[in-house]
């Protein structure tokens, strides 16, 4: 490769004026497009997955835009912006539409490229893009349909439609109804509470995905247990639950304390004193009337046997988040002492049971009074499979929560994008000046979504797009909800087929993509500290050499650009 490039590079060194900002801008745009190309094929129900090895050998198979971008470990400064917007779409805003946002941003940039090359000032483009963005968002808002004011049953089925749309493109798409219902139930269970960690997702390898189930309470894996544990009862109805954050173990009370005895006969009293401390603690637990004792710290063998004698179930070393979830679900509070345990701090639930799930035993608390928690136990044939299923469910949960809060949906399958595109084109014609061109290209960029959907499914994108444009051009507006029909390769009414997305996802995607595009456009020079680059080169000696080879000859310019 390097040998092939050699003459061109020499040419560069002599001819090109590197201080000019235009070349910099163009190369930034190219970098962004290249990154978007990686995730391009993951879009839509026929999207493919990526298998990524990272440097320390762990492997991820994913369809989630944000996950892929994160794992790619991108270092190009302009391309990093795309990673950031994907991340923000994922974590802060909605959790879904991460591929969409990257694609849109890259497409805006690609459309801008010819203008930049023709010498349009980037700021002009930016201004028009911002205008177009605002118009687009207004249009989305006006097109959105509200699901507010429906009965719970109706709302549930509508929400599950939204969840199904996002699950469509994932590995678990085959069981989308099953999982969509599960997700909707889980989200409704935790109510409008903002604490997402109240939905626990537990992964148990083995079984098929239909064996996954939802617990309207908390479930966690059996913790490490000492001898005597098996003699405890494993099922309770309406037990009182005591949650602790102390160790129940026979141990020295104070570190570094030392006892000196001068009289051997006192020996026994010291031993007894220690035993009494632990027995007193245990006794208080029993006195409180609790039937299930959970602790974040260890519950020793002595305590295990003590509880077993008194028909009490105990589990030590429960993970912090699980304990918090039990606390929220059962209405109890976590105690840091066993003194003065009153009834109010004890939680309860309808059924507590230890159950076999696959190869593991699970502690399951169900029918909790406050009902503010839900746990999804995921099953699947391989670890990678469950990992990916978890990511997909995360997306679906976020979507449902968003839809529940904002309660407006738009048609998916590229329908909304086509409609905005049409609207912007129409609007552009009423504008005098250069801006008309720019808004037109913005409108064209939006068509990437349906186009990519077709490409991924192996359809003739141009053909389908023409049909869509024609449908959307109807003056009556009846064609507005038409999108790509992924099954037949034609077009169909997405809204009627229940391909729905929450409006907020789309709004945010358009907004973030425009912002990112504008940001990249407004940069005309990157100054990179040469020292840090050499340090990097040392750290990754191999990488440094490889890079040096590629830039041989064009070194001066290469440095400045980056």
């Amino acid at each position, binding site marked *: 490769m390097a040998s092939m490039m050699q003459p061109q590079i020499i040419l560069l060194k002599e001819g090109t004026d590197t201080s000019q900002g235009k070349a910099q801008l163009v190369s930034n745009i190219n970098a962004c*497009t290249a990154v978007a190309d990686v995730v391009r094929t993951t879009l839509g129900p026929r999207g493919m997955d990526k298998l990524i090895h990272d440097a320390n050998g762990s492997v991820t198979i994913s369809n989630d835009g944000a996950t892929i971008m994160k794992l790619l470990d991108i270092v190009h400064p302009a391309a990093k912006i795309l990673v950031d917007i994907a991340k923000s779409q994922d974590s802060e805003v909605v959790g879904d539409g991460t591929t969409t946002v990257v694609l849109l941003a890259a497409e805006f940039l690609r459309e801008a490229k010819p203008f930049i090359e023709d010498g349009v000032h980037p700021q002009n483009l930016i201004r028009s893009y911002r205008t177009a963005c605002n118009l687009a968002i207004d249009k989305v808002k006006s097109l959105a349909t509200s699901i507010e004011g429906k009965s719970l049953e109706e709302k549930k089925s509508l929400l599950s439609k939204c969840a199904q749309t996002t699950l469509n493109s994932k590995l678990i798409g085959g069981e989308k109804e099953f999982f969509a219902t599960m997700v909707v139930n889980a989200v409704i269970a935790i109510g409008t509470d903002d604490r997402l960690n109240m939905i626990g997702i537990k992964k148990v390898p083995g079984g098929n995905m239909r064996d996954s189930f939802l617990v309207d309470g908390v479930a966690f894996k059996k913790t490490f247990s000492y001898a005597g544990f098996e003699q405890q009862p494993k099922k309770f109805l309406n037990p009182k639950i005591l949650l602790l954050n102390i160790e129940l173990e026979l141990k020295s009370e104070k570190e570094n304390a030392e006892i000196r005895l001068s009289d051997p006969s006192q020996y026994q009293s010291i031993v007894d004193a220690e035993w009494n401390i632990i027995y007193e603690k245990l006794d208080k637990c029993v006195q409180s009337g609790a039937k299930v004792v959970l602790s974040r710290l260890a519950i020793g063998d002595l305590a295990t046997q003590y509880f077993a004698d008194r028909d009490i179930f105990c589990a030590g070393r429960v993970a912090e988040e699980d304990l918090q979830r039990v606390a929220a679900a059962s209405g109890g509070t976590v105690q840091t002492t066993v003194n003065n345990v009153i009834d109010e701090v004890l939680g309860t639930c309808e059924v507590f049971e230890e159950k076999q799930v696959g190869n593991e035993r699970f502690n399951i608390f169900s029918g909790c009074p406050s009902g503010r928690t839900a746990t999804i136990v995921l099953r699947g044939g391989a670890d990678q499979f469950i990992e990916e299923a978890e990511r997909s469910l995360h997306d679906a949960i976020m979507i449902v929560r968003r839809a529940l809060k904002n309660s407006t949906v738009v048609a998916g399958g590229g329908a909304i994008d086509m409609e905005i595109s049409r609207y912007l084109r129409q609007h552009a014609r009423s504008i005098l000046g250069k801006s008309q061109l720019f808004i037109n290209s913005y409108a064209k960029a939006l068509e990437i979504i349906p186009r990519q959907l077709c490409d991924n499914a192996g359809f003739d994108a141009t053909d389908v797009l023409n049909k869509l444009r024609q449908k959307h051009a109807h003056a009556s507006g009846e064609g507005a909800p038409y999108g790509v029909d992924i099954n037949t390769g034609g077009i169909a009414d997405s809204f009627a087929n229940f391909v729905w997305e929450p409006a907020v996802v789309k709004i945010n995607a358009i907004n973030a993509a425009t912002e990112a595009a504008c940001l990249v456009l407004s940069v005309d020079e990157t100054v990179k500290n040469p020292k840090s680059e050499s340090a990097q080169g040392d750290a990754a000696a191999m990488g440094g050499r490889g890079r040096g080879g590629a830039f041989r000859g*064009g070194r001066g310019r290469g440095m400045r650009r980056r």
Partner: protein
Amino acid sequence: MALAFDEYGRPFIIIKEQEQKTRLRGLDAQKANISAGRSVARILRTSLGPKGMDKMLSSPDGDVTITNDGATILEQMDVDNQIAKLMVELSRSQDYEIGDGTTGVVVMAGSLLEQAEKLLERGIHPIRIAEGYELASRIAVEHLERIAHKFEFGENNIESLVQTCMTTLSSKIVNRCKRQLAEISVKAVLAVADLERKDVNLDLIKVDGKVGGKLEDTELIYGIVVDKDMSHPQMPKQIQDANIAILTCPFEPPKPKTKHKVDIDTVEKFEALRRQEHQYFDDMVQQCKDVGATLVICQWGFDDEANHLLMHRNLPAVRWVGGVELELIAIATGGRIVPRFQELTAEKLGKAGLVREKSFGTTKDRMLYIEHCANSRAVTVFIRGGNKMMIEETKRSIHDALCVARNLIRNNSIVYGGGSAEIACSIAVEAAADRYPGVEQYAIRAFADALDAIPMALAENSGLQPIETLSAVKSQQIKIPTRVMQENNPHCGIDCNDVGTTDMREQNVFETLIGKQQQVLLATQVVKMILKIDDVISAAEF
């Protein structure tokens, strides 16, 4: 890997250490993945069925394993390729969930991949193939349900359970005495099963082995076998109606956990200390005696002095018994684990009808049998065999058989084995394929072809002509309508043992319904995952 070039043909550095990473995408990636998956399946193919062969695996530190169990083979192979790892996990999940059929599931996934490759070459979109497979798997699972039989069993009527376990064991090296082992497995599971809740805690079944003797000496003990002996050689070797004290405290003077120091400044004090120590031993033994214990089982060790004293007082004792075994003993004998001597009471003692120490052959190894326990909900399968590898393989086989028995208790539906269920499904799927418009039809047909791989492999491994045998059996299934079903006869399978009939009902070859369904679903799931990958990005060293 090069992602992009600028106008002047120079590559961008977008990804960290870009030069070192390799990237495989599109059809090439799929082809590479499929061939990785298939090569794993190819290894296991010859292990399938009663005439399947074993594999010998030698670990880096020289341990040799000989096994026929799919999950174990893959586990030990230490696969590095990611797609191959998926197949390993596939087999492992079948092992976790069902415990049996680990070879079959991989062979099926391999043949699904093989069929998918052909479809990919014809230009069918991988996701369409996966979707078609999914539709087909659903048809197959439903059909399995239709051809399944329920059978009844009870505490005394275990014949049908034994037959099913025998099918599992017949493919293993232990098939010489499969009848005996199957009975042991079924009895063991029934002993610990909670028939009402349909729950079986396999933790309560201890499978232990010792080199020596012959496989026929393998026995089921309603109680516990511990690899320990009496702490003093002169203690009695056999105790009738033992009252067992189960202790987690050592026969030693108690120690406070806090750092401590005893200052001795006079001879009197030293003697007092000495006396006190002696007194402790005396008291401890006395306390055990007082509550009526006739045997002491202790998690920790004890002094020679205590040992002597115990011997002297005629109280047999066992020391250094592990926590898990201690717990099992407690469950079996209905005793309580006692953390300190002061708490010892008569109620907390465990009861066992017979405790005996048994020595093996001419060796000095001894083991302790605790039998006729108050609560027989903990049992031990004790395996004897000529060598260590044999015992290990028998353990795995027994595990499979135990799992099968457990699954039957959970769900008492069975299908017939010998590939008959697969052939029946293949016919059903093939017939259903024509109803689906679109590209999926091809995938569904391919699925039917893939299902044939299992009977085909069975026939091949049994030295029969695979294609001839399969087509003969297939036509038999369609031709002979049984009285009950009035349609096809789904009981015809491959006659691996050359018995003379292809009817698996007569041969008594059963498999569990849930096991078979799980195989179909799991294989489809993993194949979908593999087909969905079109881009493999890896760092250079991989």
